């Protein structure tokens, strides 16, 4: 395979060179344990402090409200279980949505087995929740609203500010999974009344295996990982020093260049959408037309199935993703596509192409040229397609 075109930036991103360079010394030279008091330890500690302040700056938080984790999933688990168990005396009701990432959904399901009650809010055809439904779902036993900032499949961005205001007004903790939003949307945890927020480095050109949880000062929360006194006694374990340094740098780069990034990926994204919609029949475009992640394009092609589409693209070096059942060996298409009401047979033909900083117009044009041919070839093989 010569040419490879990566259009799966929502799954993960390549690390930027600047991030790698910032990390490198911490593997072999400045490798100390940040808890050690000798010079190796102190320089490690300093590096972590710097990363923490970069993260804090990126989201308008205070430095001591940032906690590093082993990834976005750990942050989600920690926020939800931690708040649930620490506030059980106040209530056992949690509100979330049907379109959360599995790190949120499966955590909520686990809590349901342990006596918590969870309301899963519906979304409309664009993947938007209804603020009225949210208001109505709140009871005096509600202790947590956990509601994703931006959806990883269809890209829809929720009205986080309004949700935060409702939560604040009712005195309920508000957690948002901002794993996809960070670096793609301007975020200010205070303006948006966010109490807890999950982040992940590998979605913003940083390293895999590092995440962060913003915890507003005063939030009552249990630890998920007990042990040493790291992270102000809240998250034990020797810090992933190079990873945290990389996360700090990636966050800094993301915020510095937020507008440029958004413009770049959005332009290419719109070019892609127009190209495909013009050239292919029987295709739907999913997610919200405006309130969506700038780099996210999500299609459903009728009469064909997602995995065979992905494989065909892959043979041309084009990397995309799908919410189709058959890639997962499970019967149902993704819960997100079901929640927006896409019929099963159409949901199976879905394709997510997500664009990033390294994507070029040539790559997009190549996809616009090749994808319709692939769709046509597969449709010719499909018993559902009659023309």
């Amino acid at each position, binding site marked *: 395979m010569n040419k490879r075109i990566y259009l799966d930036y929502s799954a993960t991103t390549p690390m930027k060179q600047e991030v790698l360079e910032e990390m490198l010394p911490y593997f072999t030279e400045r490798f100390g344990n940040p808890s050690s008091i000798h010079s190796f330890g102190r320089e490690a500690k300093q590096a972590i402090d710097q990363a923490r302040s970069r993260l804090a700056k990126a989201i308008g938080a205070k430095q001591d409200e940032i906690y590093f984790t082993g990834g976005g999933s750990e942050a989600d688990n920690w926020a939800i279980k931690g708040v649930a168990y620490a506030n059980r005396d106040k209530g056992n009701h949690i509100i979330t949505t049907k379109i959360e990432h599995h790190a949120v959904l499966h955590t909520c399901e686990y809590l349901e087995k342990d006596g918590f009650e969870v309301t899963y809010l519906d979304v409309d055809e664009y993947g938007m929740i209804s603020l009225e439904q949210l208001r109505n779902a709140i009871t005096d036993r509600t202790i947590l609203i956990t509601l994703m900032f931006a959806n990883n499949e269809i890209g829809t961005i929720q009205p986080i500010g309004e949700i935060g205001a409702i939560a604040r007004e009712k005195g309920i903790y508000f957690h948002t999974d901002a794993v996809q939003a960070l670096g793609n949307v301007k975020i200010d945890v205070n303006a948006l009344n966010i109490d807890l927020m999950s982040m992940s480095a590998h979605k913003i050109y940083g390293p895999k295996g590092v995440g962060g949880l913003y915890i507003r000062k005063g939030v009552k929360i249990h630890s998920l990982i007990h042990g040493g006194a790291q992270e102000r006694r809240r998250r034990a374990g020797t810090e992933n020093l190079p990873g945290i340094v990389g996360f700090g740098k990636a966050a800094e780069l993301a915020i510095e260049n937020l507008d440029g990034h958004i413009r770049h990926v959005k332009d290419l994204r719109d070019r892609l959408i127009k190209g495909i919609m013009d050239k292919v029949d029987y295709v739907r475009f999913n997610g919200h037309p405006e309130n969506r992640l700038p780099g996210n394009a999500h299609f459903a092609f009728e009469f064909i199935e997602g*995995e*065979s589409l992905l494989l065909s693209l892959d043979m041309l070096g084009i990397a995309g993703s799908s919410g*189709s*059942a*058959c890639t*997962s060996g499970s019967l149902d298409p993704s819960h997100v596509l079901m929640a927006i009401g896409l019929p099963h047979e159409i949901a199976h033909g879905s394709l997510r192409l997500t664009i990033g900083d390294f994507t070029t117009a040539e790559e997009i044009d190549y996809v616009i040229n090749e994808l319709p041919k692939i769709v046509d070839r597969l449709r010719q*093989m499909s018993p559902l397609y009659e023309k």
Partner: protein
Amino acid sequence: MYSEKVMDHFMNPRNVGEIENADGIGEVGNAKCGDIMKMYLKIENDVIVDVKFKTFGCGSAIATSSIATEMIKGKTIQEALKLTNQAVVEALDGLPPQKIHCSVLAEQAVKSALLDYAKKHHITLDELNDFHPDEDHHEHGEEYEEA
């Protein structure tokens, strides 16, 4: 993930299409589940002289359909009835665990088409007495997480 054999049959599927006035037509799976296989047989003197398929489904569904048609073409009905999903899997140099059910689908598509032929021609094929293609054919292996 897939063997070269699978990818070959997926990218260059043999015997794609339909047969007009086919002697037997089999259809298994359903669109809701994301997989439909439709198989057309032309049978002369108990021999499958032509076979075509159309498949809506994953890469492995397309590859198993393709190789299954190759495996029964030119064979007698009795020989075709012996086609098992294991044989299909072997012929493809293996399939990932969560894709085994596609091979089951292929076996069932062939059998459905033969059953259809038998019904139309008022023959009894004892081998198909216990055949119920509508049963859930999905065997779930490990799930992959889309990130």
